[in-house]
């Protein structure tokens, strides 16, 4: 039986990033999908040989420009635990707030890209317009829109004043109200429902079998969320992981939309609970070179990220390894793409929220 072969990527407007699939189609049904990556592989893990551990954070931040803050934070947390540093409370709270803001940013960005993939240009524009407000918050508080470079081993570089925090909270809550309307569109628009509902269904068993993480797993009913482990002050926050059971693209959208609202709430709790006062210690400078190894797990917007850091007492680390969420979710994506429609392929790819530069490093 003759088939159509569609060369999906490396350059393809659906994904700004080069993910490569050979889609084998009949009519528009995908009968097979052959994946490959490698167009972004930089060899980032090897940079430990070239860059000292103090500056390695800047390299790690550039694993991905979307969850840059979380990568920087994960690296610093790893080094802090190797070197036995307990960071100041204020710094920990600030990290938590920035982390949640970057989750909102990432989800808004993703919602927009997703909307663009199924041809809803206006929604894309609208989501990204909201995202710009988050970027303004970031630029105001960290000095960068995309790459924040605000983490440092032992704490954070910049503080947010209490008044600033209060203003940010108000801004975020206004955004939350605006976002509710957008969420309403995603939830009730018939054409979106047609494109996402029942498309790319990943059952709970399958999600567990291919070790999904993050919103992808939560949309299939697995209540996995690394924040539940309570590290990095998440134990002081009250929250429940957002779980949906449908497992389709729409469920993945819904999980992320609810997480945006949840993040705003987490930020509110954090601002309420963090010690007040503007002149608190922000960092503790560790001494000497690190030695030892550690596994660090964080919940990024896309799911669990896992860092392995091995230090040998020199200025250069011996081994740095990041297992990013997309790396864990790609097997599920390949599984879902097979048997879907060509028109569903962008939706399936995007609803795992792929970050190829994370995956390949």
């Amino acid at each position, binding site marked *: 039986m003759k088939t*159509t*072969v*569609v*060369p999906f990527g490396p350059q*393809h*407007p*659906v994904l700004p990033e080069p993910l490569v699939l050979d889609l084998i189609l009949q009519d*528009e049904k995908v009968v097979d999908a052959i994946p490959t990556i490698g167009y972004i592989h930089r060899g980032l893990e090897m940079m430990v040989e070239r860059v000292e551990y103090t500056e390695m954070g800047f390299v790690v931040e550039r694993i991905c420009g979307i969850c840059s803050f979380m990568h920087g934070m994960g690296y610093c947390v790893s080094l802090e635990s190797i070197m036995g540093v307990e960071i100041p409370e204020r710094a920990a709270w600030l990290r938590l707030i920035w982390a949640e803001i970057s989750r909102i940013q990432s989800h808004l960005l993703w919602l927009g890209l997703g*909307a*663009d*993939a*199924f*041809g*809803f*240009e*206006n*929604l894309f*524009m*609208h989501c990204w*317009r909201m995202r710009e407000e988050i970027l303004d918050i970031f630029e105001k508080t960290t000095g960068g829109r995309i790459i924040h470079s605000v983490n440092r081993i032992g704490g954070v570089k910049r503080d947010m004043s209490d008044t600033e925090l209060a203003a940010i909270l108000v801004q975020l809550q206004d955004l939350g109200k605006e976002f509710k309307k957008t969420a309403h569109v995603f939830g009730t*628009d018939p*054409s*979106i429902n*047609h*494109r996402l509902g029942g498309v790319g269904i990943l059952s709970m068993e399958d999600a567990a079998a291919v070790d999904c993480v993050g919103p992808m797993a939560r949309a299939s009913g697995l209540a996995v969320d690394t924040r539940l482990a309570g590290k990095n002050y998440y134990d002081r926050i009250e929250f429940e992981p957002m779980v949906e059971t449908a497992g389709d693209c729409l469920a993945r959208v819904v999980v992320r939309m609810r997480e945006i609202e949840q993040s705003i709430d987490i930020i509110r709790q954090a601002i309420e609970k963090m010690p007040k006062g503007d002149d608190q210690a922000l960092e503790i400078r560790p001494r000497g070179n690190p030695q030892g190894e550690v596994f660090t797990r964080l919940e990024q917007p896309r799911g669990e990220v896992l860092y392995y850091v091995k230090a040998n007492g020199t200025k250069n680390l011996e081994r740095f390894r990041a297992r990013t969420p997309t790396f864990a979710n790609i097997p599920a994506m390949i599984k879902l793409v097979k048997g879907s*429609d*060509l*028109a*569903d*392929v*962008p939706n399936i790819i995007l609803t795992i929220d792929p970050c190829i530069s994370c995956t390949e490093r």
Partner: protein
Amino acid sequence: MFAWIAGILFVVLAPIFGGLLVGFDRIISARMQGRVGPPLLQPFYDFGKLLQKQARQVNPVVEPLILGHVAFMAITGLLLLSGTDIIFCAFVFALSALFLVLAAGSVNSPFSNAGAERELIVMLASEPFFILMMAAVCKVTGQSSFAGVMASSHLVALELPGVVLAFLMVATIKLRKSPFDISTSHHPHQELVSGLTTDMSGRMLAYVELAHWYESALLATFVVLLFNWSIALGVVVFLVAYFLEILVDNSTSRIKWQLVLRSTWIATLLFSGGNVLVLFLVAR
């Protein structure tokens, strides 16, 4: 003679009308998205630039086929206004669209081909309606030419409300607007890259754009046929309909071809088919 002058005027003026329409469309779309948008004459700038650019030919049959597409769009208008039977014009209209499909299909590359096949699907979805609409107009007025319909004492739209409804839906296909822009669209078209036009460049693309302007003008003419009291009424109704299309374009996602086919067929069958059935049952 007058009819022929009207036809030739259409050939000359339709691109200007269509281009301006697209210009307004892009501004209004941008405003609906909270943006400023391009200048009004942007489609003409694009057209001019494309004519000046190098045209990379993938094979030699593409260009004649696209020229056929443009030519038959213009000829459809020419014939329609110069008094040819309007049902026959629906067939010529389909022929024009077919040329575009063939131009894209002849490239033998994955995305163009998928675009061409999808364009065939949207033709399959829209053609029955146009034939039916023309037949219904003939039935209502008892006339077969544009001038005859315009001179008729019936207001066609009053007797064909179902056809007008279905027209709103099917015109979305021809205007390449969401939710029916599955083969190509003015926005970057995602899973098929640029769909039909993926492998066209330079003046080839300019011709496609020109044909689209003709197509928009033709649709306006069809609306004039439906609202046959005066040309002005028809054009005003068309502009209102076009605004609605832009609004829908900015408020829906692109749907899959299966639903495009099913929904337009059902609409054609239910609204226009039902309308025509009533017309036949009531008549005489």
